[in-house]
């Protein structure tokens, strides 16, 4: 039993020693912290991770002043112009349901649609060709693009009956690059369904 008695005492003393060591450790640690200048105090790992680098305030490195909104331009048939006539597609189909007419036109600086007789291919479909020419001659576009525009009226087709190719058009140099030009209504053909029209380029 003496053995057990001694063992118990040792155990108690050991526990006391451990707690005393912890106590002394904290006392020493606190003592050194108090003596250290503020900047040299060791930051715990969690503290170091959370430490933020405060960035410069806005307006120190540079300024950006919001400017006016840029209004986009729309390249389309200019309906505000006088004398612009539409093409009646249903009537065209009545006149010549097998019409196959190709036009290669030029849009000039003022937006006018120009073409010569050599620019029209309408073999065997003269009446339809003349009707198309009569309408297209009156079309004036908003003057944001210029170049070549191609029309192909292919009435016998079961799918696309009118194909308009805009790949030959280029935006005018005088319009600043940052102003977007969107394609608006580029034809005035009444009675033409969307599924019958293809615009490429």
């Amino acid at each position, binding site marked *: *039993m003496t053995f057990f008695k001694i063992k118990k005492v040792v155990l*108690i003393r050991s526990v006391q020693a451990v707690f005393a060591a912890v106590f002394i450790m*904290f006392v020493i640690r606190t003592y050194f912290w108090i003596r250290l200048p503020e900047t040299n105090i060791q930051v715990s790992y969690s503290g170091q991770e959370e430490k933020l680098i405060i960035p410069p*305030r806005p307006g120190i490195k540079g300024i950006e002043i919001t*400017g*006016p909104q840029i209004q986009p331009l729309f390249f389309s048939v200019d309906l505000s112009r006088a004398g612009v006539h539409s093409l009646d597609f249903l009537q065209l189909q009545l006149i010549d349901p097998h019409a196959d007419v190709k036009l290669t036109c030029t849009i000039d600086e003022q937006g006018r649609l120009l073409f010569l007789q050599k620019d029209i291919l309408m073999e065997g479909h003269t009446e339809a060709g003349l009707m198309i020419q009569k309408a297209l001659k009156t079309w004036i576009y908003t003057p944001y693009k210029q170049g070549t525009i191609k029309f192909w009226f292919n009435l016998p087709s079961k799918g696309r009956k009118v194909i308009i190719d805009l790949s030959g058009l280029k935006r005018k140099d005088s319009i600043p690059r940052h102003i977007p030009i969107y394609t608006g209504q580029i034809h005035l053909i009444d009675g033409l369904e969307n599924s019958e029209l293809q615009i490429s380029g």
Partner: protein
Amino acid sequence: MFIKISDRNKEKIELVSLIDMIFILLVFFLVTSFVIKLNLQERSLYVPTPKNVLGRAQLLIQFVDENRIFWLDEEASTVVESIEENYGYLNDASLRDRILSNLTSNNIISLNQMDSKINHLISAANQDPFTNYFILIRCPNELPYFHVIDVIEKLSSTKYRNIKYGCVGGTFDDIRYCKRIYDVVEKDSKGNRRKNLRIDF
């Protein structure tokens, strides 16, 4: 034969009390160890700090001195655009000097002129509660701050509180001797393209 150990010789230590006391001490030191680091811990607290980006605003009010203000609004980008177009052949430094000489001669105003412009802005803000304005006020550190307070008081008098402002220290020389001043096309938060004026210090 049983040996009876007398109670007198028994070493009795109340472990429960000891552990209680040690834990109290442990808690005390843990708490004090955090308290001692409070100054550093404060830095790791969440404080919404400004982002390291350009100071964006619709309007810049830069105090040149006690009586003069450099006022930049959205019209400035149009002025810069025209200079960039007309003098695009100049090198960056010369172009910057030309832009700044133009802006300096036209955009430095008196306190009275600034008051009338601010009143105009306030009346516009009062008419449209859905339009928000942000104004950047820059003031040299050596200038009495009451000038800025005067401006802030006026800006705060809007009916719908839709004029926000930010203040930052800085001199007119920061702008006068900036690295670059130029127009840049950007999309705003609503997706509208805008021509903004950017000044890099």
